[in-house]
């Protein structure tokens, strides 16, 4: 890992920094929003774009290390794209069931 080519290092670094900032933004949103219905959508930023960017960076780095195209990391992206809407729908139904107030308010 001492002589990685330049075309892999710079995009991988940019993707890593973007992924970190997006995930941090999503989790700060989870902490700062007032109600459950507002908090619901904040971590999806980290779910989708954060994971996709860091996996693209991982694809770049391991392709540059091995000298061929390595794309088996995209399996995690596929898994999360399939799986996270299921969790979101179940949680939203549970929230609506347990909280009978109106979901839209003035905050």
């Amino acid at each position, binding site marked *: 890992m001492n*002589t990685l080519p330049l075309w892999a290092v710079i995009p991988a670094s940019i993707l*890593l920094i973007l992924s970190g900032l997006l995930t*941090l933004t999503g989790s700060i949103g989870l*902490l700062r929003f007032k109600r459950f219905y507002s908090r619901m959508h904040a971590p999806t930023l980290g779910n989708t774009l954060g994971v996709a960017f860091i996996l693209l960076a*991982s694809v770049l780095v391991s392709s540059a290390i091995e000298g061929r195209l390595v794309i088996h990391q995209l399996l*995690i992206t596929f898994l999360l794209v399939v799986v996270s809407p299921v*969790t979101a729908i179940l949680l939203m139904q549970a929230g609506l069931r347990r909280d009978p107030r109106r979901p839209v308010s003035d905050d």
Partner: protein
Amino acid sequence: MNALLYWSAIFALCCFALAFLCATVRLLRGPTPQDRVLALDTMYINGLLILLGLGIQFGSSAYFDIALIIGLFGFVGSAALAKFLLRGEVIEP
């Protein structure tokens, strides 16, 4: 140019650790049970991201398998907890 990759991986790992901390605070403070389940969902995503960042930094592919297993079991845990909050039991007869 390897220092660039090293320090951006360090930066991303610090961001993921802060995000994990935010999710932990929401898990401890959350007023309703569905908030806690949502925080748990965010926490497993952040742990998966931390493992992927460590895999990039150390140049090893063993972290990828751990991250895949965390993704699978985290989904099972979050879906089971949400189903429990929704119905009162996980597997209905």
